[in-house]
């Protein structure tokens, strides 16, 4: 009787040990079978934007007397430049005055006769020299604005300009024509 009881106990212990071993051997199998996974790739190519736009491309100063100054765009400004880049790299806006030449001869007005001022900006940077004063044009490309912060992530930066022309006292009478070139570049 005692032998049979011991035998049953042995059997139960062996069975229990077998089950424990079996469960320990395959826990991952139990968990993994509870779910299935499928992955798909997603992709997009975001286009590159690097643009410069200018409104009102003709600056006409009328009848400026020698020694006098005339301003275009008093108040909110004369025209605006729109710059946009999403390259993620800094960009720079430069300006130069190619010439202000008398239409009937070789006489020039000095580049410094014409000045610019940024009166308003939507960018994160500040115009070179600030917004309160006019700055002389140069015959060489000169920096007028450098992008800051999110300016190079696709935000459009709008710069509103005023211009002033001061005719020298010794300026010859007549019409003068010149060309202002704005350049947007990733090199300063």
């Amino acid at each position, binding site marked *: 009787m005692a032998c049979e009881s011991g035998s*049953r106990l042995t059997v139960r212990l062996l069975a229990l040990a077998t089950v424990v071993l079996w469960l320990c051997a395959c826990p991952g199998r139990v968990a993994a079978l509870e*779910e299935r*996974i499928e*992955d798909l*790739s*997603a992709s997009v*190519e*975001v286009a590159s934007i690097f643009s410069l736009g200018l409104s009102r491309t003709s600056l006409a100063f009328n009848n400026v007397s020698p020694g006098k100054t005339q301003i275009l765009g008093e108040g909110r400004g004369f025209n605006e430049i729109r710059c946009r880049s*999403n390259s993620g790299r800094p960009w720079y806006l430069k300006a130069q005055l190619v010439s202000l030449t008398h239409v009937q001869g070789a006489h020039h007005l000095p580049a410094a006769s014409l000045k610019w001022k940024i009166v308003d900006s939507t960018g994160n940077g500040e115009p070179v020299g600030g917004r309160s004063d006019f700055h002389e044009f140069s015959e060489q490309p000169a920096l007028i604005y450098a992008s800051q912060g999110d300016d190079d992530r696709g935000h459009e930066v709008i710069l509103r300009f005023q211009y002033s022309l001061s005719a020298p006292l010794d300026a010859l009478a007549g019409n003068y024509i010149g060309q202002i070139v704005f350049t947007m570049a990733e090199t300063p």
Partner: protein
Amino acid sequence: MSGGVVEWRSGTVRRLATGPLCRFATAVWCCLLVATPAFAALELSTDHRSLFFGLMQPGEEKALAQSGSFHTEVTCASTGGVTWYLKISLLQPLTSGAESIPFENVGWQVTRTDGNGTVVTPNQFQSFSATPNLVYISGPGEADGRPVRIQFRYLLKLPEAQVSGAYQANIRFTLTEVL
């Protein structure tokens, strides 16, 4: 002699049938039956069409598949006998180097299913998230091995201010019996 052999054999069989070895084998077999988890035969497959949005301008919006159509078909099946769930997630934002497109700009929509279960957000785009979003809850009789097809379309709205580049990510479908 032959009668003795028969008697010996009968005794052996009787001893084998009622002996400790048999009881052990029976006990182990019964325990394994009880302890064996109900293995759910879950099956999940897709048509393996990647989400290729191509070239897009900042600010542009593009859907993969027009309204009423689909881009991806997911097939789910279970013989587990219990309710199953399909979930969807975006493992990480669409990323290009250090730049990324926010989760909320990428959406998914169930356009159709042949199942009788519940589409959690029918007929509307939902933003992706890294946390799996519940898409579908199986209905009656859908845990008997019958395949259920669920069709998806996708939407990407590029922010106005987004740095150019090639962005990539992975979306994940999860079929599970855990809500």
